[in-house]
């Protein structure tokens, strides 16, 4: 018998199906993920941070940075019934959404509880792209039943998407050769030639929308997977002198909280995933009443939402400015300093470097919004545990909403 010991076939990976998938930008992102700090999003390996969360946050606020949004769910909804179908599903009026515009919206169950929030891109009279945080195909299919001139395609794996945020982001895109990018208004979409299509001006495989989740100037770049790495390289080449840096989930979470954006799993539960019937939320509870357009005669959850609006929700999500500098993470809220009467809880909190304030989002029982709000904060100092009760002040405006976010053209750098 003659066995060749050197030619051992490696055993097949018994966990192959269980392992996290890699995004289209993975080869580059992995190289820059110095800390190997990965978590997961929708089955994809996903950076929590690359080097240091705070550093990445400052890149977003002071320079520019990329956030890999390949794991975000993307659906093409097209056909003669697409507009009607979507318009019945969401609570905003889609018919008012113009070509090459994006809108933020949410959709609810029949009972008016929020299934998810997301954005819809109008890519044609009969063509939309819906993006959202978690898989929604089942709900989309349910919503599509009865519409015959309709196609829904899950493009989540088929489109490479990169969010590019920060005050210098426009400048970098200009450097990359995206002519006219500076005249793109917030929530607008524009298409550019890219890569091989350089010669053919009609082939525009790169889609850019002026959107993002940081509350700052920023764009989202959409391209076919084959061009993903070329896009990354072009962007990083153009951004070299602008301190371009990838940022992960942790920095995103800081930036979005300053901007007052809500996060599933923190501010809200997706209605289809809760067991207790009151553990989900209505848009009114989440301060998203502006996404509910009662001028529209019909949309899912309308009747229930009308009731909820008039009766006022039990809880309301509010922005709090909190005394001191200890983040009020997971704090309980009281109507009195002695913490006898509980009226709510904090959903997200941080010390905000740009605002220089101790900020939080919190769910407070609506009927106590007029009175005092106190937070009981637990914190640790060199392994010693402390607690204190501090006063909270309601904020109506986003903590962070600089003019530069919306300026068109954006400031040059």
């Amino acid at each position, binding site marked *: 018998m003659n066995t060749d010991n050197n030619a051992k076939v490696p055993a097949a990976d018994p966990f192959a199906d269980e392992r996290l998938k890699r995004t289209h930008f993975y080869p580059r992102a992995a190289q820059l993920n110095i800390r190997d700090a990965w978590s997961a999003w929708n089955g994809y390996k996903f950076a929590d941070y690359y080097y240091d969360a705070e550093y990445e946050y400052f890149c977003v606020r002071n320079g520019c940075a990329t956030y890999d949004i390949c794991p975000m769910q993307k659906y093409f909804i097209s056909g003669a019934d697409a507009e*009607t*179908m979507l318009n*019945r*599903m969401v609570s905003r009026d889609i018919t008012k959404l113009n070509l090459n515009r994006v809108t933020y919206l949410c959709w609810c*169950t*029949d009972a008016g509880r929020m299934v998810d929030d997301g954005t819809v891109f109008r890519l044609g009279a009969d063509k939309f792209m819906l993006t959202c945080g978690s898989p929604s195909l089942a*709900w989309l299919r*349910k*919503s599509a*039943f*009865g*519409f015959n001139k309709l196609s829904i395609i899950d493009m989540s794996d088929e489109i490479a998407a990169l969010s590019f945020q920060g005050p210098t982001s426009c400048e970098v895109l200009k450097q990359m050769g995206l002519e006219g990018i500076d005249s793109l208004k917030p929530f607008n979409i524009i298409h550019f030639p890219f890569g091989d299509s350089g010669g053919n001006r009609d082939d525009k495989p790169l889609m850019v929308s002026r959107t993002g989740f940081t509350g700052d100037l920023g764009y989202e770049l959409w391209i076919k997977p084959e061009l993903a790495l070329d896009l990354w390289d072009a962007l990083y080449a153009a951004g070299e002198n602008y301190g371009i840096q990838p940022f992960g989930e942790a920095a995103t979470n800081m930036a979005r909280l300053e901007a007052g954006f809500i996060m599933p799993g923190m501010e809200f539960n997706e209605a289809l995933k809760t067991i207790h019937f009151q553990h989900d939320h209505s848009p009114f509870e989440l301060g998203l009443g502006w996404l509910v357009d*009662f*001028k*529209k*005669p*019909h949309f*899912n*959850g*309308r*009747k229930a939402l*009308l009731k909820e609006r008039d009766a006022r929700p039990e809880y309301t999500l509010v922005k709090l400015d909190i005394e001191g500098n200890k983040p009020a993470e997971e704090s309980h809220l009281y109507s009195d300093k002695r913490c006898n009467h509980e009226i709510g809880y904090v959903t997200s909190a941080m010390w905000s470097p740009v605002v220089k304030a101790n900020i939080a989002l919190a769910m407070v029982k609506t009927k106590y919004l007029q009175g005092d709000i106190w937070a009981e904060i637990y914190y640790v100092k060199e392994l010693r545990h402390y607690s204190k009760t501090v006063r909270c002040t309601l904020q109506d405006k986003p903590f962070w909403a600089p003019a530069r976010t919306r300026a068109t053209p954006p400031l040059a750098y």
Partner: protein
Amino acid sequence: MQHYDTIIIGAGHNGLICATYLAKKGQRVLLLEASETLGGLAATREFHPGFKAAVAHTVSHFSAKVARDLNLTAHGFDSPMVPMPTVGLNAAGEHVVLTGIGVDAEIIGVSAEDAASYRQYRQLLQRFVELLEPFWLKTMPRVGDTRWSSLLTFAQLGLKMRLLGKQDMGEFMRLAMLPARDLMDENFDSELLKAVLSWDGLIGSKMAPRSPNASVLTLLYRMSGELGGAHAIPSGGIESLVQALYSAATASGVEVKIGARVGRILIQGNSDGLKTTGVELADGEQINAARVVSSTDPQRTFLELVGVENLEIEFTNRIRRLRCDGYVAKLHLALDGLPNFTGLAKPDGRMIIAVDMDAIEFAFDDAKYGGYSQQPVMEIVVPSLRHESLAPEGKHVLSAHVMYVPYKLKGGWTEDARAALCQRVIDTVAVYAPQIKAQILHSELLTPQDLEQTHQVTGGHWHHGELSVDQMLMMRPTYEAAQYSTPIPGLYLCGAGSHPGGGLMGGPGHNAARKILE
């Protein structure tokens, strides 16, 4: 343009009844019927020159209250009717024959023990029939509704159950969901008797003796009328019931249009939400009304006439999931003379072919997998014995409900498939009436798909949708539409798909009218 208070879609018996109640209260009512005949699944039509038959061939629990309220006797409906015997056919002529009503029920052809058990069984069921009696003509409480009127309906049931006494109450709770098989095995020895007694709990639904569901409730529903579960053919036939309802309707001012198919229910939207404004006929004509009441089945009403864009998503999906596939086919035979069934002096009963409960169960098994049984089970009447004008003099019509013929046949309902089934059914009848084949002038077999086509009923379903626990009472057809009103203001349901269900009974039409007039 004309303006009506109410437009009713479909002139089946429920549409006619609802229309009449509303018109009697002074409403201007327009009743629109797609086909050229009235009566829906109770319509009588000529299937061979000189020979007529109705889809529904007997009446068992038509509401006495409706008959009274609408004064149907004055309009030509002979109520109360003469109950016909129910006969469990045996090839050798050793039939089981049930006669009489309620406590006067008699039985022939079984052992003394079975006869005694039968009397007890009837008495027990009769007490349950009385227990449920008030609920068939009532609007069911809304799920989650805690208003007094709703709670009262529940309280009433609770009280009635208490009045039954502890033992009966326990029995009722136990029996309500019991498969027919267990109920029969507990009580009787005769296989034929068991098959015959389980029949009325099963016919029209996708259930067999061993199916755990509410076949006992269905049975009690059918026993709710004055006939106590016996069947009858009015002397003027089913036609005379439809005719009386039509006459009562027009007498009270209902405008009836036949050949007027509604293509769409008109729904208008503004910042106050949606509202029903009328209907559009298939030819494009639009007619306005303050409200529209549909007696066509829930799936057709919502998915075709209303359109999903006007409905909510979860509601739509509940309607989509309603189980509507029919499992009953109809055989109509034009006969040269009176058929002779072995051992029967006269075929004037309701004759059931099902030798034992396994025969029913196995026929169901075939249908479950998209086939039909080579030993079909069925219920036969010779309606021309009672309603002479159905056939030329000296000639007769045989009408049979053949059970467990699937709406969706594997391979499809081709001409060949239909002809083969028709032959199989005739061969089966001939086992009990050996000379019948020579008497057949013409035969017709209508599959559930044919019934769907002719009578515009989804799945050709007896009840417009299964009458099973999950689609019954306050769940019928589904919550948010179970009180005759629908999620769309101005749109109501009044057909068999609503509580209490199908059969020539009139409950849905009556209850819907009362809800509208509330």
